């Protein structure tokens, strides 16, 4: 497979209604792809532009959008870190490739909370989302996400182990921190969701470890879920679907995600927790299932095995809908390009 010039097809035209149908639990007109993030090397190869062009405000997005089009997506994801619209300043984090959930904490008590510089979501340049219309093929849309989710940002600010103790020892401070982060994220989605170029929103917030949620469901119900519910409401109010990207073992809270928070789709699955095939059987009639081809599977298997699994998954969903093919999480640079291309090329085999 020529990974330098991959294209879904010469005549491929993105059409967001395909992903929209998936997100509404329906059958798309053609097999549909979904990915949250793709590494820069691959964006370079797919777009034919190896390095990012920063000569103008829109130039980097041109490359990004072209890579999504060539790969065969009906949309491009656009995170707030790309648009510089909202981010919470973090402390010194481990300056290496991986990062501990305990590092970078800036808020440890009431005094540091009061001193923290809280970003103002109103100050972002949201015009960028509308200006990107110039670069999007006619029926292509953007799928917007914030720069980290509620629990993720709170953990980044406080540190996982600190937060584990803080919510038991200082409920008032815990409430204030969640409210500060939650209200900013809510405002971000309130501004972004109604924009014409935005077809759907991803709310990205990792909640689980391998065996269970990071925090007990009672803690999540008190501090995390109410803000998610409000965020989903503002996305729905704008007539757009809301996708939850959340890693880890979430079985104990999936009913809440579907029935109470009312997410339209769930993204992020791991074979060692719940393989996507099982997730589709278990929840697929109540919520759209996105991606799910396990990252370790993608990284370490043969092209034949990858294609076999992807074709089987697409066939499984072909008459029921509510599924788009993609990885279990994202495409970091350690996944061989040929393996990723093997996965996405299976939409042409159905």
């Amino acid at each position, binding site marked *: 497979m020529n990974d330098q010039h991959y294209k879904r097809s010469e005549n491929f035209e993105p059409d967001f209604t395909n992903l929209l149908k998936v997100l509404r639990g329906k059958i798309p007109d053609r097999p549909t792809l979904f990915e949250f993030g793709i590494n820069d090397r691959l964006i370079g190869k797919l777009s034919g532009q190896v390095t990012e062009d920063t000569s103008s405000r829109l130039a980097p997005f041109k490359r990004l959008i072209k890579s999504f089009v060539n790969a065969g997506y009906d949309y491009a994801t656009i995170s707030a870190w790309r648009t510089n619209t909202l981010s919470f300043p973090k402390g010194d984090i481990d300056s290496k490739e991986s990062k501990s959930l305990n590092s970078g904490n800036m808020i440890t008590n009431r005094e540091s909370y009061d001193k923290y510089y809280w970003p103002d979501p109103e100050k972002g340049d949201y015009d960028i989302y509308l200006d990107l219309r110039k670069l999007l093929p006619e029926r292509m849309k953007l799928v917007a996400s914030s720069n980290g989710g509620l629990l993720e940002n709170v953990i980044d600010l406080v540190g996982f*182990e600190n937060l584990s*103790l803080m919510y*038991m020892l200082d409920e008032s401070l815990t409430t204030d921190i969640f409210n500060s982060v939650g209200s900013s994220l809510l405002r971000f989605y309130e501004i972004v969701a109604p924009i014409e170029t935005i077809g759907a929103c991803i709310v990205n917030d990792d909640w689980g470890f391998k065996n269970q949620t990071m925090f007990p469901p009672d803690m999540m119900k008190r501090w995390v879920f109410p803000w998610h519910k409000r965020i989903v409401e503002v996305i729905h109010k704008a007539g757009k679907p809301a996708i939850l990207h959340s890693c880890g073992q979430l079985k104990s809270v999936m009913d809440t995600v579907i029935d109470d928070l009312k997410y339209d789709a769930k993204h992020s699955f791991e074979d060692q927790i719940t393989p996507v095939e099982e997730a589709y059987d278990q929840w697929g009639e109540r919520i759209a299932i996105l991606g799910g081809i396990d990252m*370790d599977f993608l*990284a370490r298997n043969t092209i034949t095995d990858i294609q076999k699994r992807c074709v089987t998954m697409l066939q499984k969903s072909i008459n029921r809908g509510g599924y788009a093919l993609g990885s279990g999480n994202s495409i970091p640079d350690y996944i061989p390009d040929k393996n990723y291309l093997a996965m996405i090329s299976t939409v042409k085999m159905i």
Partner: protein
Amino acid sequence: MTELLQKIAKMVELGKIDRNMPFPPELKGKDGASELTLKALEIGIDPQDILNNGLTAGMNAIGEKFSKGEAFIPNMLIAAKAMHAAMEHIRPYFSEGDIPSHGTMILGTVRGDLHDIGKNLVKMIMTGGGWNVIDLGTDVENKEFVNAVNDHKGAIVGMSALLTTTMLNMELVVKELHRIRPETMIFIGGAPVSQSFSDEIGADGYFRDPYSLVRYLNKDKLRDSQ
């Protein structure tokens, strides 16, 4: 006497450190593990008995609940805090302040990986289960594991990784440790690893949660001492 030790165990399990601790709300203002341990010492209960049937029993109880998915990491962290607070009272009763242990574990997150929550949990549960833990920290170079094994003869090794990329470093450490000390028992843990990966790289086992590991090791210890 037994009732007091059970109470200490319960306070450790609940993470009630001391009287000032507001959690759990229903025990606000009541004695925690710290005060109850002092009380136990005052009435002459053997510190070893307090350690085994109070503090360790409490950590075992929360570890078992965690293993079954009935408790969460924050519960383990707060329980460990309660245990450590109480341990400070009994430590002076042991020679040179050393608490007797089942053995030593050398623990670390492998090279390239900075994730430490899983490792820290293993440390807490192993300590609570009566093991002396040498924590090498995160992003541990392969040779640091080797040096530590050379420095602590008979120690077992625990390696943690969160990333698919870094878990591959485990194999290199296993090979090197088994080359220099074939008898070293090596256990692995972390999100991307599994029993089949453990078998593949020649480690001695994978455990989904730290309590399962300590239960396995302590069973072995009990069997050895019979």
